């Protein structure tokens, strides 16, 4: 069992690195890059959702801001793309700290409302501020690799997203073993108790919120450079946010590889539906129904159902008191 759980991630990592060369055509490379992008985003969504239990339906706000930030820095200020990507992600993270301070004052359902409002608000601002963002006509971002053709660009971005995914997974793993992670888990079990035991719950929640925004913003920035054209309706869409939630929930929010597994299922399925059913809205219905089914019948996700033993690092089942003892000073 141990060798399996050690060896499997390595094997999968090797497969992932080889994927662009195994894929028979560039379309599948493109679909792969998209899948890895979603995997990175849902893993970073899980930095907040998995540890604290705070469900954000608004993470596409950070995706869109990262995309527009990177795009605007490149287009309006002629900043090199790598610098633009990092600067934009840092700005979005700072913004997330500000929003987090207001957002984490409320719990449960109210927090979800705030996160939803965030997306609508950003969408409104970007569409309204035509002189800067181009409004609803969108923003064109020049390719960072003008020498490459479209298919080669897909390969480059596949690897860039893969690096991002690795960073997100490493962060989740690191946090899960840290005192910070123990504090976040205590917040999920019993926030009042955690606070009375001296866990700085407010600061921890804001930190988790900002950290998870950071990787989503980076994904947004990469997306802007990859696609080359930004449409506010798409990048600030509720659909992207709900994908992150659905993928994490389906795979299992308590597991390191849960969101990744969810992304491997949901993203290709979404692409398939798009091809099979065309541009109708029925894929929304499919997403919605799967979400309803997961919430009703499998709220702990696939990994929890199939492995009582651990499939990679995960948040162990223990009582709230045991967990709180771990964080008490």
């Amino acid at each position, binding site marked *: 069992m141990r060798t399996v759980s050690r060896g499997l991630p390595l094997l999968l990592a090797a497969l992932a690195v080889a994927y662009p060369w195994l894929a028979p055509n560039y379309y599948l490379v493109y679909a792969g890059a998209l899948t890895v992008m979603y995997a990175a985003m849902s893993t970073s969504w899980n930095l907040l959702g998995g540890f604290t239990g705070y469900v954000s339906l608004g993470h596409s706000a950070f995706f869109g801001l990262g995309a527009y930030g990177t795009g605007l820095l490149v287009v309006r200020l002629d900043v090199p793309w790598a610098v633009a990507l990092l600067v934009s992600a840092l700005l979005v993270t700072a913004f997330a700290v500000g929003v987090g301070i207001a957002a984490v004052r409320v719990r449960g359902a109210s927090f979800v409302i705030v996160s939803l*409002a965030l997306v*609508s608000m950003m969408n409104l601002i970007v569409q309204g501020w035509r002189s800067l963002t181009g409004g609803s006509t969108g923003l064109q971002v020049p390719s960072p690799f003008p020498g490459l053709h479209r298919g080669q660009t897909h390969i480059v971005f596949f690897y860039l997203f893969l690096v991002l995914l690795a960073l997100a997974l490493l962060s989740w793993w690191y946090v899960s073993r840290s005192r910070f992670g123990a504090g976040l888990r205590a917040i999920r079990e019993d926030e009042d108790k955690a606070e009375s035991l001296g866990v700085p719950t407010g600061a921890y929640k804001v930190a988790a919120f900002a950290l998870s925004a950071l990787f989503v913003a980076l994904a947004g920035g990469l997306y802007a450079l990859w696609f080359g054209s930004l449409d506010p309706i798409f990048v600030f869409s509720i659909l992207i946010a709900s994908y992150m939630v659905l993928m994490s929930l389906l795979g299992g929010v308590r597991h390191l590889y849960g969101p990744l597994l969810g992304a491997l299922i949901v993203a290709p399925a979404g692409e398939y539906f798009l091809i099979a059913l065309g541009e109708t809205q029925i894929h*929304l219905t499919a*997403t919605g129904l799967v*979400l309803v089914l997961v919430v009703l019948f499998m709220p702990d996700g696939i990994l929890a159902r199939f492995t009582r033993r651990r499939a990679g690092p995960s948040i162990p089942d223990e009582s709230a008191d045991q967990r709180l003892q771990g964080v008490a000073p």
Partner: protein
Amino acid sequence: MVSLLLQGLALGVLTGGLYALLASGLSLYFGVMRVVMVAHPAFLFLAAYLTYTVHTTLGVDPFLALPLTVPLFFALGVAVQRLLIARLAPDNLAMMSVLLTFGIALTIEGLLGTFYTGSYKSVSMEYATRSLSLGGVHLPYDKIIAFAVAGLTLAVLFAVLVKSRFGQALRATIQHREAARLVGIRTERVAGYGFGVGLATAAVGGTVLALITPFFPASHWVWIGKLMAIIVVGGLGSVVGAALAAVLLGVVEGVVLVTVDATWATMMFYVFLFLTLLARPQGFFGGRLAHRF
């Protein structure tokens, strides 16, 4: 400038009445099940589209769709509560119910988009296109009708809640579920009916909406933002708070709409939402229930 402000004020009060009706449904769900029903605006648009279909195929007045949509939505509400919401585990109800109703909202949006396409639809009646002039202020008849219908529905709702035995049982369930059960109220059934009543208000609201504004499937997200801002400012679960916040935000929106522009008018909802959270997370009016949510 003064007449412009008056115009905005009057429009705001009229729209605020409709907002109050729509937010009352959300307060009911929250009251009876502690559930934030994100799918409420999606049902609203479902009602608007049904009204559109009835109007275009039968050529009748949109309000004649109400005898069809209101009972249908009541039954839908009872079904949603019994078959879906009641199945959720109580320990994580708040989050899971949001995700569940979010899934329902996506499902409805997708179906509407598939059957009716994503383009704008509207129902316009000849009597609703004119407006009433009162001392320099123009009040469109459709907005007046919307306000009247909303006011009437709210009045009926309050009468039911205060006078009828069902209303008493519902209020008892909202106040203290266990105690209500102890005195013999079948709280599960009452919660189901409470959901039904909430969705019935969405049926009325959707019909009114079809009359006063063009609609398309994805526009329910804008309404989620607006209605959620209203119930947060008013205090989750407080029907009276929601009504007051609805009129307040309606007026602010109306005034900003005529003095600045539409983007900022919508933005005001989010500004108020965040200000409320910073200053008083439990909401400004009532909102006792919201304290620990």
